[in-house]
């Protein structure tokens, strides 16, 4: 009796880093060896699949026997043999390695539309995509819909750009379609420069054909014969899979001349970005593709009027485009059934920070931050107190814990002083210093500013200097006013979105966490115990047993004391490294 056996090994970036390729290889050899012994193993497939979100538990492996699916977590190559032996051959799953209940609750509130196939199909095999209705959307479009009908369908779906600004995609396509000119372009923005963000990376690594198909449909709708994917060179795996996918699509006739035997022809070129955050801004991106320095220019003219090489150009984010095929196949109404009045569909977030389950999640818009943090994320690590949620990356802001019942949609986040952005979501708890968080993002925007315009180039530098002053205990009362005024001036007068939003992390933390700024400035104290220059370490005599551990680890010899008697820290010598704090078993060292 032949059983249908499938083994799916996560080989997304997280999976590979955790040893996914070795695990996959081990499965293949084990099965081969076992296959000689037991015939039951014929029909067993080993697949490469993309990221399924919970990277912290990698390597994740699905074992599917007939219709029964079991998922293993934290799998290492040397564990494979036992799984093959006990589970695949003898039919007894290795229960202690299976995922636990909290793994399932990670997925409960999620809604996979864009990521539906990530983790299911083999991203390096076009047949795998085709067997999941792949390229059926473009076929439907080419054979039976006019460009106007396609645009209308996308407009009706309510899809808004996932790259940050949330511009209605159908409207953008319509503007490009109506722009005069017979040469037009569609560009997929895969620059993804937000620190900590990996949504687009996961989509391309897990399901590159969906992006290609989305571009094909967009190209058809606006009248473009050529598309570009602008992707950062730091994503080697995504680039490789995309290249393979494009080649396979060409080979199958989905790219090239006369697609489906019609007059419609379309092809895609990959353009590697050199890792400048600002090149994600559309006019800078265009300049970069044209071979110029990646600096934004003033709009108007907008890219839909005058874009790449001066021609009407649509720029869409990876996730936006990956939504398109399912909208065409399942219909605008289906898509619009997810989300809220003004924010339709789902959104992928890179959930990081102090939640228990970090990883990639896809949720229906309108879900509350509370649901994300406590149900999907499993709550705060160490059950500490939630302080804030940072969304929108360096352009976004911090939403305080008191507001986590707001729905996640474009308007609500903006009202709360942050933005949806491209999908970064960092959970901050009481051990995070908000001034330090603002400083972190300012460091990023300052070093990524293109330098073209004065408020952003010099202004963000001055903001950063003020924040550095405050966190090092040299802040003055007037610094708060200065931060506010300079932030507002930079927002008002910068050229592009980078400078216009760079002060947001400062403004939103000033709005909700002013007391923390004040503690740094007036009391020279960091309430979260993060800012090193403001920390003092003292030994509490009543707890100190005189074990001498601290004395041993202190790298600067700042601790004195005799064995079995309370020790002492000499403040002038202490370099505030915190080594003693970490090592003391009796909680006798106070940090504050």
């Amino acid at each position: 009796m032949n059983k249908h056996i499938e083994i799916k090994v996560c080989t997304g970036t997280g999976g590979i880093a955790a040893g996914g390729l070795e695990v996959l290889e081990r499965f293949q050899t084990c099965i081969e060896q076992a296959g000689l012994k037991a015939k039951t193993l014929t029909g067993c497939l080993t697949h490469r699949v993309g990221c399924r979100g919970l990277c912290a538990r990698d390597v994740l492996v699905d074992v599917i026997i007939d219709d029964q699916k079991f998922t293993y977590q934290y799998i290492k190559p040397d564990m494979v043999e036992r799984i093959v032996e006990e589970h695949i051959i003898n039919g007894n799953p290795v229960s202690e390695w299976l995922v636990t209940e909290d793994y399932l609750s990670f997925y409960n509130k999620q809604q996979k539309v864009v990521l539906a196939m990530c983790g299911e199909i083999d991203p390096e095999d076009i047949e795998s995509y085709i067997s999941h209705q792949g390229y059926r959307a473009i076929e439907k479009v080419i054979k039976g819909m006019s460009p106007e009908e396609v645009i209308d369908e996308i407009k009706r779906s309510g899809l808004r750009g996932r790259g940050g600004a949330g511009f209605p995609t159908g409207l953008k396509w319509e503007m490009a379609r109506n722009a005069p000119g017979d040469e037009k372009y569609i560009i997929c923005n895969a620059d993804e420069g937000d620190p900590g963000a990996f949504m687009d990376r996961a989509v391309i690594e897990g399901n590159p054909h969906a992006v290609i198909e989305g571009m094909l449909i967009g190209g058809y709708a606006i009248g473009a014969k050529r598309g570009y994917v602008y992707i950062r060179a730091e994503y080697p795996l995504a680039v490789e899979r995309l290249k393979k996918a494009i080649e396979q699509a060409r080979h199958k006739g989905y790219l090239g001349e006369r697609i489906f035997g019609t007059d419609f022809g379309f092809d895609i070129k990959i353009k590697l970005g050199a890792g400048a955050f600002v090149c994600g801004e559309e006019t800078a991106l265009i300049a970069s593709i044209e071979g110029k320095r990646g600096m934004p220019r003033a709009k108007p003219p907008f890219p839909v009027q005058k874009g790449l090489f001066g021609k009407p150009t649509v720029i869409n984010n990876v996730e936006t485009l990956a939504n398109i095929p399912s909208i065409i196949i399942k219909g605008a109404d289906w898509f619009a059934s997810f989300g809220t009045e003004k924010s339709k569909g789902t959104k992928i977030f890179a959930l990081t920070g102090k939640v228990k389950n970090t990883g990639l999640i896809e949720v229906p818009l309108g879900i509350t931050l509370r649901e994300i943090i406590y149900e999907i994320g499993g709550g705060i690590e160490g059950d500490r107190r939630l302080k804030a949620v940072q969304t929108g990356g360096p352009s976004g802001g911090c939403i305080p814990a008191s507001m986590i019942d707001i729905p996640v949609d474009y308007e609500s986040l903006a009202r709360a002083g942050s933005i949806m952005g491209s999908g970064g979501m960092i959970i901050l708890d009481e051990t995070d210093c908000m001034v330090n968080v603002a400083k972190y993002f300012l460091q990023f925007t300052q070093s990524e500013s293109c330098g073209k315009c004065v408020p952003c180039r010099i202004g963000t530098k001055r903001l950063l200097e003020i924040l550095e002053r405050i966190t090092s205990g040299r802040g003055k009362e007037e610094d708060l006013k200065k931060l506010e005024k300079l932030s507002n001036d930079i927002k008002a007068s910068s050229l592009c979105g980078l400078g216009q939003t760079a002060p947001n992390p400062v403004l939103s933390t000033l709005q909700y966490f002013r007391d923390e700024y004040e503690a740094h400035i007036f009391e020279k104290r960091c309430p979260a115990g993060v800012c090193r220059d403001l920390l003092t370490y003292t030994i509490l005599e009543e707890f100190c047993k005189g074990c001498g551990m601290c004395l041993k680890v202190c790298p600067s010899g700042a601790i004195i004391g005799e064995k079995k008697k309370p020790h002492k820290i000499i403040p002038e010598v202490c370099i505030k490294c915190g080594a003693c704090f970490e090592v003391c078993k009796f909680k006798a060292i106070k940090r504050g």
Partner: protein
Amino acid sequence: MIKVKIDGKEYRVKPGITILQVARENDIYIPTLCDDPRLEPYGGCRLCIVQIKGMPRPVTACTTPVTDGMEITTTNEYIEGLRKTIVELILSDHPNDCMVCEKAGDCSLQELAYFYGIRTNPYYGERRRYTTKDNNPFIERDMEKCILCGKCVRVCSEVQGVGAIEIAYRGFTAKVTPPFEKDLNCEFCGQCVSICPTGALMGKSSLGKGRQKDVKKIETVCPYCGCGCNMTLHVLRNEVIRVSSRPDNFHEGWLCVKGRFGFEFINSPDRLKRPLIRVKPRDKNSKELPVPDLNDFREASWDEALDLIANKLREIKDKYGPDAIAGLSSARCTNEENYIFQKFFRAVIGTNNIDHCARY
């Protein structure tokens, strides 16, 4: 024609031009640092920001085209406040050594600091420091004074078609530089020097020779070639210390390396000022020698020199015929002069043996 309203007053203007162009045509002052009408709009300095009714944020006048019915405010407390912050930010990263700066008195940044009355700066902080010097022969590049307006980069590629410099690096460390931070090695036309709003780019041949006060400006035509570029000599105590060219002349103020930087010959002791006639070499007994001494000349008057040439030409023509004479004219002469020269050869001497150095 469309109608726009600027600061409450209505204007009828050509569609498609920018707000800044309209303002300039109508003598409305909007401060600028990175704009030059001869270059593509840039929008980098942000000084020209104005408000437009119905738009959520201010826009730059230099990059925004006017549209019908647009209502523009070019100045109010809010806008001037933003502009002042911008100038303060620039000055916070500037050497501010006007006292010894070559450009003082002719510097757009100094002008703005004066205009906004900036004495103290709330945004003091780190300032860019560059210690290596560019050792090219013509252009003094002091990048600490550079405000990154990008004009030099644009003129070099848009006008000169050379592309010798670009902005490199990001953020606060952004810097205009030749490739790989090497010494500038280009045509040295100096368009960049002429367009730089600050003292970041100066001609080496002018350094330390005097600033603006007491300089007499004399309009003239460049003597180097037949193009006849207009130039302005900056003369201090009867010495040319700098050459500039006005943007409103027929070549829009652009010059070449010779016109812009090649003026030191004027005061050279070797310069020819009167005709010289070669002295016939003689021995101690005043007997003529067969070999001429190439360095022995005597000064003569123009009349004497021209008479000598005329006599020699006549002698040769009489003896060997007109085709024994040939004329070679110079690219440094104007068209008119070259025309007269060939006419003289064809009509007066009677030969077609006439040519021009530009053919070689």
